[in-house]
């Protein structure tokens, strides 16, 4: 950060959870939080992809604002006072998770991502004891037509990380969302089987960034010892950030 500041960016000093922090003017609250080891739960946010502020888990309180603000898109300002984990926020976050669990058929025990799932991990970390909303039990398709990967809509939380990584990093834009509201669904090309996609390069980035078991590798599961896109996400992530920086410099 010091280097950036030296590069002519203004430094902002402010307070997060009572702790004095600083960041450059183009940084978001979440970036500064991560630099300071302040944990904020997220599902749609992924460093290196465009922020969309959709999952609402990273909402924080900012003094003087009557609305909760998404930390992933809110730029830091001088003297702002941020609270990242009040009882109110904790309560909202658990309920948002519950809504996500109620939306589709997340059956952890038989999911190939059991144990490496960000949704599941968050549920435990945020202390979700159970889902008090009635489950909706929609009937959804599993697309196993691709030779290496599987799409299971039952596990999809519509975070659109796959859509963004495919468009912004791979440049293929195989993925998008069809429909709207509760009927939204991720699709490849003209909603055709993934295996028949003309644009997919089979690069596997979508699988690597998927937080749940919606996009997975065939013949791999969480206990596999060999390399897997999902499990080795952390190895993959610095690559994302680098690609993004290269792209930004070019444009």
């Amino acid at each position, binding site marked *: 950060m010091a280097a950036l500041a030296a590069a002519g960016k203004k430094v902002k000093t402010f307070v997060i959870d009572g702790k004095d922090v600083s960041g450059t003017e183009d940084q978001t609250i979440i970036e500064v939080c991560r630099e300071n080891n302040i944990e904020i739960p997220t599902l749609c946010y992924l460093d290196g992809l465009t922020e969309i502020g959709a999952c609402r888990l990273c909402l924080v309180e900012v003094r003087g604002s009557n609305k909760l603000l998404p930390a992933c898109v809110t730029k830091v300002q001088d003297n702002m006072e941020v609270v990242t984990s009040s009882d109110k926020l904790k309560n909202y976050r658990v309920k948002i998770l519950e809504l996500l669990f109620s939306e589709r058929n997340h059956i952890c025990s038989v999911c190939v991502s059991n144990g490496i799932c960000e949704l599941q991990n968050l549920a435990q970390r945020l202390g979700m004891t159970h889902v008090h909303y009635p489950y909706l039990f929609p009937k959804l398709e599993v697309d196993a037509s691709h030779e290496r990967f599987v799409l299971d809509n039952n596990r999809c939380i519509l975070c659109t990380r796959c859509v963004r990584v495919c468009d912004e990093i791979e440049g293929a834009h195989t993925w998008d969302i*069809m429909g709207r509201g509760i009927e939204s669904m991720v*699709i490849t*090309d003209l909603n055709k089987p993934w295996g028949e996609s*003309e644009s997919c390069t089979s690069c596997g980035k979508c699988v690597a960034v998927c937080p749940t078991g919606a996009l997975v590798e065939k013949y791999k599961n969480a206990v596999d010892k060999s390399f897997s896109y999902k499990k080795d996400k952390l190895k993959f992530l610095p690559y994302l950030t680098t690609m993004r920086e290269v792209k930004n410099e070019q444009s």
Partner: protein
Amino acid sequence: MLIKKIILPSDDNRWKLINATMKRHGYQPNCLIETMHTVQETFGYLDEISLKFVAFALKVPLSSVFGVATFYNFFNLKPQGKHTCVVCLGTACYIKGTNEIAEEIKKEFKIGMGKTTEDGQVSLLSARCLGACGIAPAVVIDGEVHGNVSTRETVETLRRLAYAN
């Protein structure tokens, strides 16, 4: 000189209309929705061939084209019936009973909302508000707005149209 040629999917002249819309906007990706309007006006619905053609000509990814086509209620991906009946479900119409009209049509023609009868005669659609609240309840039959309608008269009109020949 480099000639960028748009190849029409077939020699059906209607493709020229669609091409004209895109040409007018300089084949900019942002005219996707405008072009889809033209496709639907021309062919009545958006089929796979037209979606691919538009995607190719505007250089928009296929999945984006499909995403847009399914986001907006106005676009149909399937052909509509010979006759269409749009029941307004706006608030004013709703509290004046258009829900009943819709139910009655569903029963009479054995179709669901947004569906077409098996013989392809009648499609039942709904609108979120026609802005014709002053003459609620309102329905649109084959493009013509009918205000202050009753359930019986709507069903009768449709029946007449559907069983005309």
